[in-house]
């Protein structure tokens, strides 16, 4: 086939082709390039960021603004300071659930400053414009360029059209906050005055934030105001700049971080932060990080261990050092263990005095955790499998038919051969302070390490185990009892009998009955872990057999090598108070109090101190030193206030008779006899004494 064509027509076709190529180059290819760059950036391909920057630099007008808006401003941190991937503190880690492009590379501060400045210079004035200004201000603040930050916010505010008043007010508030953080209180207050000059009844959220900042500045001006400062670094000394730092009140820590919490800041280029003008109270430091910053690292803070108690006029320094996660060695990667012992091994941690080995049982939507062994001095330990079987753990509930019963797999614990268990370790120094742990964020190949899972298949399921797993709890209990009758050495059946009896007592909200006792006694006497002893001590305590309670507490102390957990120790201390053995009780409570950072036993301890020495000054000092913290909305007693009340009351009356009455009242209170306490209350003459006794009687 041949085609006849004139030169002029051929020429016309060529021209048309060239034109279309030019058109493609000029209009279509850049679109494709932008689309490709976007895709690569979102997927986190190695040079995705460079590609996007190239496209950004090459584009102009609306294209450029759209790119900056979608890939920089949208995911960026506003001055609200809480837009971090992970908020860590008080032993908890909260991951944000929304990240549009989790794999997208991060912008460096310099890159953000360059493009955000351009956006502020020429970008369209809309909601993103305000965010761009806040983010640019944020970058300036982290570089200690306070003046630039304030300037950009002020200029943006002036540029905004009249009808977006709320956004303008937000910018003004942000400016006031920056001034307050920088200690320029007059400037901050001037802005707040301007803001409150035009109240907006609609925007209660903004009004709340304005009030919170005003309150903070007022506190900051007071002479009694405290300050908390420090630095956030990695263990190798690298400062962490631009990290969110939050000083959160014990009344706020139960909910996730919100913008209206008053003490929020960012670390500067040296990782330093400072909160000035902090009101008295109990606080915990939290930090906000991005995924890459926490990946493979941990903030070594245990729940309830890092409280900062401010009474006024203090200037505290608290540094936070991120530590590398401990790598586990064995058993890992779902190893199946069938022998009589399990050897746990992990990478040693420099400066660690001992380790705590923790485990988890799987439940439907997560895990339940427990301690397998505490105070391990080496970085490996060979445990008899019986130790694992004796672990005491919580349990979840599982639905069988229309009934919810304790998950049988959790009750079997390490004796369930189909369960996949996991483990982790914590390293602590000689003072018991957490150094680092093995569990944390493991988000890439290098940090993932081996999976901390293993199976135990030493135990084969018995008939009652099967009944239990089918949800036929009562039949299982009968069978366990029958098995134990036949074979007195059947420690598995014995353990399961005690577990099931304890659970049924717990569900019926009654103490263990006398029929359960022989099993508990037998288990307590044969189980070397001592895990069965606390129930036995509280049983004998509840029926007033003090000698038995003492004996089993002695056994617990031995099994724990003198390091009884604070809760059973405090309970034992209270048992001693109940018997009138106040001096011994005070000693136990003192030790329990020293090991319990939550200070929940302080009331009992103070009461025993007052009973023994009548030293109200000392009691007040203790109350101030170890305040019982108020969580959630509950208000726990303010012991220092209560003791102060006693002091004032004792000064007003005859000292001798007042203390005699107080001692008598305390004995009534220690007896835990509700009737006696109520009778005393109804006849009480001294209101402060009545308040104190009432508070001690309520101590958990």
């Amino acid at each position: 086939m041949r085609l006849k064509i004139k030169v002029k027509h051929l020429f016309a076709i060529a021209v048309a082709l060239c034109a279309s190529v030019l058109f493609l180059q000029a209009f279509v290819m850049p679109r494709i390039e932008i689309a490709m760059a976007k895709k690569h950036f979102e997927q986190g391909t190695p040079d995705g960021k460079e590609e996007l920057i190239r496209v950004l630099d090459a584009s102009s007008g609306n294209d450029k603004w759209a790119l900056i808006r979608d890939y920089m401003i949208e995911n960026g941190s506003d001055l609200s300071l809480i837009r971090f991937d992970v908020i860590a503190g008080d032993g908890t880690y909260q991951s944000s659930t929304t990240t549009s492009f989790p794999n997208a590379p991060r912008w460096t501060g310099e890159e953000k400053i360059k493009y955000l400045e351009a956006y502020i210079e020429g970008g369209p004035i809309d909601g993103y414009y305000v965010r761009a200004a806040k983010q640019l201000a944020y970058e300036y603040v982290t570089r200690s360029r306070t003046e630039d930050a304030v300037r950009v916010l002020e200029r943006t505010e002036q540029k905004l059209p009249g009808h977006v008043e709320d956004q303008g007010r937000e910018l003004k508030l942000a400016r006031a906050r920056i001034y307050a953080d920088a200690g320029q209180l007059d400037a901050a207050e001037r802005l707040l005055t301007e803001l409150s000059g035009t109240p907006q009844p609609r925007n209660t959220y903004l009004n709340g934030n304005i009030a919170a900042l005003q309150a903070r500045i007022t506190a900051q001006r007071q002479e009694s105001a405290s300050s908390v400062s420090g630095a956030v670094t990695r263990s190798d000394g690298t400062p962490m700049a631009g990290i969110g730092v939050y000083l959160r009140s014990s009344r706020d820590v139960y909910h996730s971080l919100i913008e209206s919490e008053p003490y929020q800041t960012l670390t500067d280029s040296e990782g330093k932060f400072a909160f000035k003008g902090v009101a008295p109270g109990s606080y915990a430091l939290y930090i906000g990080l991005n995924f890459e910053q926490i990946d493979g690292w941990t903030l070594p803070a245990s729940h309830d261990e890092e409280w900062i108690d401010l009474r006024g006029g203090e200037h505290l320094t608290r540094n936070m050092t991120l530590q590398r996660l401990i790598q586990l060695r064995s058993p890992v990667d779902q190893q199946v263990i069938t022998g009589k012992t399990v050897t746990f091994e992990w990478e040693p941690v420099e400066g660690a005095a001992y380790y705590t080995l923790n485990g988890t049982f799987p439940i439907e939507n997560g895990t339940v955790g427990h301690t397998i062994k505490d105070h391990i001095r080496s970085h490996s330990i060979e445990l008899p499998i019986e130790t694992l079987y004796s672990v005491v753990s919580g349990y979840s509930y599982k639905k069988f038919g229309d009934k919810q019963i304790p998950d049988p797999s959790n009750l079997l614990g390490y004796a369930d051969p189909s369960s996949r268990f996991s483990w982790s370790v914590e390293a602590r120094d000689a003072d018991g302070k957490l150094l680092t742990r093995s569990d944390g964020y493991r988000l890439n190949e290098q940090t993932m390490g081996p999976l901390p899972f293993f199976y135990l298949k030493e135990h084969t399921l018995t008939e009652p185990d099967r009944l239990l797993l089918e949800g036929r709890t009562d039949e299982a209990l009968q069978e366990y009892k029958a098995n134990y009758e036949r074979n007195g050495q059947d420690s598995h059946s014995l353990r399961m009998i005690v577990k099931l009896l304890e659970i049924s007592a717990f569900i019926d909200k009654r103490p263990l009955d006398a029929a359960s006792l022989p099993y508990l006694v037998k288990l307590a006497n044969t189980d070397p872990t001592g895990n069965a002893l606390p129930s036995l001590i509280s049983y004998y305590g509840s029926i007033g057999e003090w000698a038995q309670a003492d004996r089993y507490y002695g056994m617990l102390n031995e099994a724990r090598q003198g390091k009884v957990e604070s809760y059973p120790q405090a309970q034992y201390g209270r048992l001693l108070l109940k018997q009138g053995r106040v001096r011994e009780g005070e000693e136990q409570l003192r030790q329990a109090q020293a090991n319990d950072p939550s200070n929940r036993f302080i009331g009992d301890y103070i009461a025993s101190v007052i009973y023994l020495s009548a030293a109200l000054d000392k009691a007040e000092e203790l109350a101030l030193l170890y305040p019982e913290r108020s969580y959630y909305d509950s208000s726990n007693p303010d012991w220092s206030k209560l003791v102060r009340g006693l002091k004032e009351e004792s000064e007003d009356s005859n000292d001798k008779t007042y203390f005699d009455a107080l001692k008598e009242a305390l004995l009534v209170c220690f007896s835990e006899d509700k009737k006696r306490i109520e009778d005393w209350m109804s006849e009480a003459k001294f209101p402060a004494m009545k308040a104190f006794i009432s508070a001690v009687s309520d101590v958990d």
Partner: protein
Amino acid sequence: MRPEQEFIRKKLDEELGDLHFLKSAEVLERTHPRSWRAKLRAIWNYELELPLIPISASLAVLLAILFVVPFKGDVYKGERRGDSPHADRQLVEAGGNTYWKDDYEKAVEDVEIKDQS
């Protein structure tokens, strides 16, 4: 000239006597161009005869190259990473750790394959 021819000629002269051919110069100019303009026009209107199959085939190849080259790098990278878009990547908590769900599932799968072999 024979008498019939003579007659036809006369007849023709009579019949075409009213018609005058004026563009002989132009026709000559076209068939035998002399000026550069005329030469150009001749080339402009020159009729080429092209073999359709080889031409369209080479055009197709050219177009294909033009379109594939800009995307080639992309295909290569995609293959190397071997993964799909992660815009909806999820975190999962397992064994006390927090992993990316897809990484975690792959690691578990790898471990299980290793166990079976």
